């Protein structure tokens, strides 16, 4: 690179790539530094057994059309393997599965089917009111800035124009536990468990926990790629490769196998990075796609920050509670009572079942029977497994980051529990397994540089949302150290394969000059 660098992006996860692509598109000289051997972070599609490939993040509920268009991702190879996966709440005895697809239920009682329409309609109204704000820089209170005032004003306006009745309901519901919300609308325990799943998955929360249930549901409704639950072709890594190509096509550089050890600070300003190899690279701006704890403690150092700010970063809740399970299957397992397992399968008969699993995890244990979200992406995309064989990709709750005895000791037992839990629904699963990969929160932390193995880089919750994400003082992608920025899931709006944090960060950076 002949010209001096405008920006270095630390981490080629999807937000880092999105941020790099936007900056490069605006003519900035950008270099992305990635510790791993392939781009994409948790979205990368990796071979976990010979011929079998999977990505940790396996669906794209939050991805938006605008980003696909802005970065011309289709020109760079982005395709969908499925545009609208149905969600199937599996009944343990195979007799009464409930399917959620295209905004309607099948297999549920008439009352629940009707209630679901009303429930969806109300949530969609709420989602519409706050949707614009996922893609805007959060405001700072009392900044005196016009943009902040405008964002706050629009927020107020959008809420107010919900009308008195709906606004009142939104204020009542916004911090409700998922269980209360479900009990208000539905009868079927199976349906309630399934609909509560997205309210809590990924957080240290369960159906009875107040805080983020509704906001998490609305967040998940922010994607508009297809109107359903999309699956990328080539696994989520297919999208990651397209993002990397888009960034590079716009002129960004991408260096793999280049872990950053430290951000170099001179006279209170971030001026470059030191690689683990000892190499020093300078740039005008250093943008970290790492989680806030890694960014501020490991890369930057508390030395350069104020005391109370440092403490707020330390207090971020970053313990992951989800394990990722990848199974290589030599044939398609048979799920009892399900003709074709081609959807997102939820294995949780009741909210109480989820809650019980959570109770174990709170105290460092895990349940004998584990709730999970299961996908067989090879059904949609035959490149993920050898011909006729399959990949099973599952989110398994709850796997506490600090498990009693440590994960080295618990790994086999946890895997046995997960497989036994699967076998309740697919009795022949054990006979199909040729290889497995279990990624505990500790594994996610070690392999992806993710503090606590938390896929949101820090709890996605009301107290850690919008102008408090990751905390005030760093909520506008700028940090207290000039020249140092955040662009990852720890910033607004949060995790999930969305890219909004990367886009918003790029917009904030581009505005500065």
């Amino acid at each position, binding site marked *: 690179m002949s010209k001096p660098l405008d920006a270095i992006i630390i981490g080629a996860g999807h937000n880092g790539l999105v941020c790099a692509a936007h900056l490069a598109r605006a003519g900035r000289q950008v270099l992305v530094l990635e510790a791993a051997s392939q781009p994409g972070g948790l979205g990368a599609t990796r071979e976990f057994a010979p011929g079998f490939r999977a990505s940790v993040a396996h669906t794209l509920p939050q991805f938006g059309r605008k980003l696909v268009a802005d970065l011309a991702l289709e020109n760079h190879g982005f395709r969908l393997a499925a545009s609208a996966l149905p969600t199937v709440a599996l009944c343990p005895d195979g007799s009464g599965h409930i399917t959620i697809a295209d905004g309607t239920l099948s297999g549920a009682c008439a009352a629940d089917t009707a209630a679901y329409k009303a429930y969806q309609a109300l949530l969609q109204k709420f989602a519409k009111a706050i949707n614009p704000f996922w893609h805007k820089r959060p405001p700072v209170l009392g900044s005196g800035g016009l943009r902040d005032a405008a964002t706050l004003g629009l927020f107020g306006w959008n809420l107010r124009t919900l009308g008195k009745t709906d606004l009142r309901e939104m204020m009542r519901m916004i911090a409700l536990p998922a269980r209360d919300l479900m009990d208000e609308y539905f009868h079927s325990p199976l349906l309630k468990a399934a609909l509560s799943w997205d309210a809590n998955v990924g957080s240290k929360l369960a159906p009875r926990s107040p805080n983020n249930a509704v906001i998490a549901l609305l967040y998940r409704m922010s994607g508009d790629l297809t109107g359903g639950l999309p699956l990328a072709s080539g696994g989520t890594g297919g999208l990651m490769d397209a993002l990397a190509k888009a960034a590079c096509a716009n002129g960004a550089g991408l260096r793999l196998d280049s872990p950053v050890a430290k951000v170099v600070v001179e006279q*209170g300003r971030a001026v470059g990075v030191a690689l683990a190899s000892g190499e020093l690279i300078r740039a005008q701006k250093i943008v970290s796609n790492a989680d806030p704890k890694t960014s501020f403690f490991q890369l930057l*150092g508390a*030395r350069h920050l104020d005391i*109370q*700010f*440092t403490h707020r970063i*330390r207090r971020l809740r970053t313990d992951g509670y989800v394990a990722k399970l990848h199974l290589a299957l030599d044939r398609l397992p048979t799920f009892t009572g399900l003709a074709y397992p081609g959807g997102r399968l939820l294995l949780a008969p009741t909210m109480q079942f989820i809650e019980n699993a959570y109770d174990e995890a709170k105290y460092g244990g895990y349940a004998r029977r584990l709730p999970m979200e299961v996908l067989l992406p090879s059904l949609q995309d035959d490149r993920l497994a050898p011909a006729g064989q399959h990949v099973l990709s599952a989110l398994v709750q709850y796997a506490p980051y600090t498990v009693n005895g440590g994960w080295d000791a618990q790994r086999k037992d946890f895997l046995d529990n997960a497989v036994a839990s699967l076998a309740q629904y697919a009795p022949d699963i054990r006979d199909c397994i040729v290889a497995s990969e279990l990624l505990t929160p500790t594994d996610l932390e070690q392999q992806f540089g993710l503090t606590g193995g938390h896929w949101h880089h820090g709890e996605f919750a009301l107290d850690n949302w919008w102008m408090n994400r990751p905390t005030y003082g760093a909520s506008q992608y700028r940090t207290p150290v000039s020249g140092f920025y955040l662009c990852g899931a720890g910033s607004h709006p949060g995790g999930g394969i969305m890219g909004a944090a990367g886009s918003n960060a790029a917009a904030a950076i581009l505005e500065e000059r």
Partner: protein
Amino acid sequence: MSPMVRLRASRDIAHIHRGIMPTPFHSRSSRLNLNQQWSQWNGFASAVYYADPQLEYFATRNTCGVFDTSPMRKYRFAGSDAAAMLDRMVTRDVMAQPVDTVAYNVWCTDTGKVVDDGTLFRLGAEEFMLCCADPGYDWFCLAAVGFDAVAITDISEDLAALALQGPTSCALLKALGFAGIDQCKPFQVMRFPFGSGRLLVSRTGYTGDLGYELWVQPQDAELLWDELFTRGGVYGIQPMGDESLEMARVEAGFLAPDVDFHGSLHTVERGHDHSPLELGLGWILNFRKQHFSGRAALIAQKESGNYRRLLKLDIEGNKPAQHSILYADRKCATEIGYITSALWSPVVKANIAYGLVEAKYFGGQIWAEIYHQKELRWQRKVARCTRVTKPFWAPERAKLTPPPDC
């Protein structure tokens, strides 16, 4: 069933049973405290005065006074990150502070408000002692977040301390056999073998005069007191209590926590805490060193110029302006601030005070509304105040090495 929590009976907890704790010098100081006038400082008995506060005051100005500072909180910071951790916490350059020196410091919140002030002793490359009037362990632990190699220990009870302050203090220490003490520079630390261990002497104090602070293990405390008072008669030694020390520290231009300012962590009302700039401590803000907590906020405040000023005031007349409100005019129409400390200074022979004045008014006229009693009858007087920029009392001998007359 989980077992019930068993609380210890108060009689089994030594200091609760006693109510107020004795310092390591108490066996000696209580013998001299004729009226048994004690205040409570961090749970310890601290003499208000021993016999006569005026006499004690004049001793520290003309011979020497001894004040028991054992209730001070003392913290040890040790480890390879100690210097960096402290440098990021306090406002002066710790990295450049030489070993065996002391530096007066403040530490601030992110918004640049003073948490507390104190003296930082560098006792080794990786060893420090921080002394402050109030407990601060919780803040120091917060300030150590992100620094792995620093151990913070509350050593308050492990060290007894006396302040020996006044023109004859150096001569007395020399007479006690501490050879070379006359070569000890202001804010320097020296060590001497003493009793069962050693004596740490720092040329520091709270009176603005020539003086030393003596740090000793508690088991050697009584020995230190006895030696000072056995030899000290000819040097005019007097024990001094809170009242005389308070007079001396105002004359010297020093601040008292909870008198002139409140630590930011202890205030509730907005604006009731203070930045170092407001307190006249701009001189210990080092903006050229590496980052310290509150730096950005303080630079912004300094550039704005829009902050209150704690002023040193010389007030006409001889009635101390205690608790007075300050005005911009004789008619007391525009209120602009208030007095934090005030006294008639016998040594300066002036009516002195500190007043906190709003940013808009510190350059203009300042009037104090003083209430005073004459045979129980309250009188009101409005007195003109004149700003003073130097400490009221700063004798040459306080800076000289070797000090005169020793």
